[in-house]
C-alpha cells in the first residue's frame, strides 16, 4: 500500500493507502466519493442521477472488503485510463456515454472558462446569439 495521485478529469486527489498491481488501482472504498464523485449503493455505483449496476461476474474484481478497484470500474464504463508507474499518477478520462455522444449531436459542447481577470464565462450565456468560437495557443 502506497500513496497515489488520482486525476479524475478536473479533480486531483492524493490517495493514501492505494494499492497498484499492474494495471489495477485499488483504493479504500471510503475514499471513492472524494476521489471520483461516485459512491457504492445497493443499486450500483452511483453519481447524481446515474447508477451503474455492478454485474455479478465482475463484482469480485471490483469490490473486496473495504477496497474498490477504480480501474476495473473504468473498464466497465469504458473510461480511458493513463498511468505513470514512476510517479504513481493516474488519469481517468470520461465514461463511454460522454465521449461517444460528445460531438454526434452537433450541439456545441458546453463549457465554463475564466478570462484573464478570473471572471467565468459559459457558452450557454450566449444562447440566442451567433458565436464565432476560435481556439488558439502560444505554441
Amino acid at each position, binding site marked *: 500500500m502506497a500513496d497515489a495521485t488520482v486525476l479524475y478529469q478536473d479533480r486531483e486527489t492524493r490517495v493514501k493507502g492505494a494499492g497498484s498491481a499492474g494495471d489495477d488501482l485499488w483504493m479504500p472504498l471510503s475514499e471513492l466519493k472524494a476521489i471520483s464523485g461516485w459512491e457504492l449503493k445497493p443499486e450500483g455505483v452511483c453519481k447524481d442521477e446515474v447508477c451503474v449496476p455492478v454485474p455479478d461476474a465482475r463484482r469480485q474484481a471490483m469490490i473486496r472488503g473495504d477496497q474498490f478497484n477504480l480501474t476495473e470500474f473504468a473498464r466497465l464504463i469504458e473510461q*480511458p485510463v493513463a498511468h505513470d508507474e514512476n*510517479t504513481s499518477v493516474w488519469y481517468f478520462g470520461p465514461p463511454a456515454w460522454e465521449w461517444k455522444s460528445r460531438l454526434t449531436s452537433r450541439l456545441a459542447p458546453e463549457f465554463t472558462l475564466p*478570462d484573464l481577470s478570473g471572471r467565468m464565462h459559459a457558452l450557454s450565456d450566449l*444562447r440566442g446569439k451567433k*458565436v*464565432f468560437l*476560435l481556439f488558439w495557443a502560444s505554441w
Partner: protein
Amino acid sequence: MWQGLREELKDSNFEIVTIAADAKGSGAVEPFITAAHQQHPSLLDENLRVAELYDVRNVPAIFWIDESGRMVRANDPVYAQRRNRETAETTLNQEYLDAVRDWAARGPESAYVMDETRLGARLPNLDFDDVAAAASFHLGTYLALHGHPDEALIHFKRAHSLRPENWTYKRQAWNLGDIERDYGTSFQEALKDPASGPFYPPLDLVEASGG
C-alpha cells in the same frame, strides 16, 4: 484582426469568443491578449479540456455556433490575416471574413453553413484509441508541469502514436520539451510524416460543385 469584424457585426446578434488552449497558461498568453486590446470574451483553457471536447486537432480552429447552440461549421484552420510568402506582405483574409459576414446576415440560408455530411468530416466519431490518446496527453501535460519531464515524454509519445493526426498533442508537447532532443525530429521533418496527415485540413469554404 477579428475585432474589426466584431465591431462591424455588433448589431447582428453576433459575438466572438476566443479560447487559449495552452498548458503554460496566462503567463504565456497574456502578452498576446493585452497587445490585441481584445474586447470579446478571451478565455483560458489551461488543461486543454475544452479543446478536447471540440476535438481541436490543431490551432487555429474556428467553430460557428448558431443561436440555438448548434455547430454549423467546425475546425476551420483560418487566420484573420494572410501573409504573402514572397513579399511578406500581410492582408486581411477577405474571403473568409466575407463568409462570416454572409452567415451573420443570412443565418441558415448562408452557403457557408455546413450540412451534416460536411460537419461529419470535420468532427469524426471518436473511438477508444482517440480518448485513450487524450488521457495519455493529459497525464503527460500534468507530469511535465510537475517536474517530471522524462515521465511526461513516455505519455506524450503514446498519445502521438495513438492519434498521429492530432497536432495539438504534438505541438503542446514540443512546447513543453524540446522537439529535437526529446523526439529526435524537427518541425519540418514532422510535417512530412505520412502517418500524421495534413497539418491543416482543406478549408472547403463552400461545398465543392458537382460533387
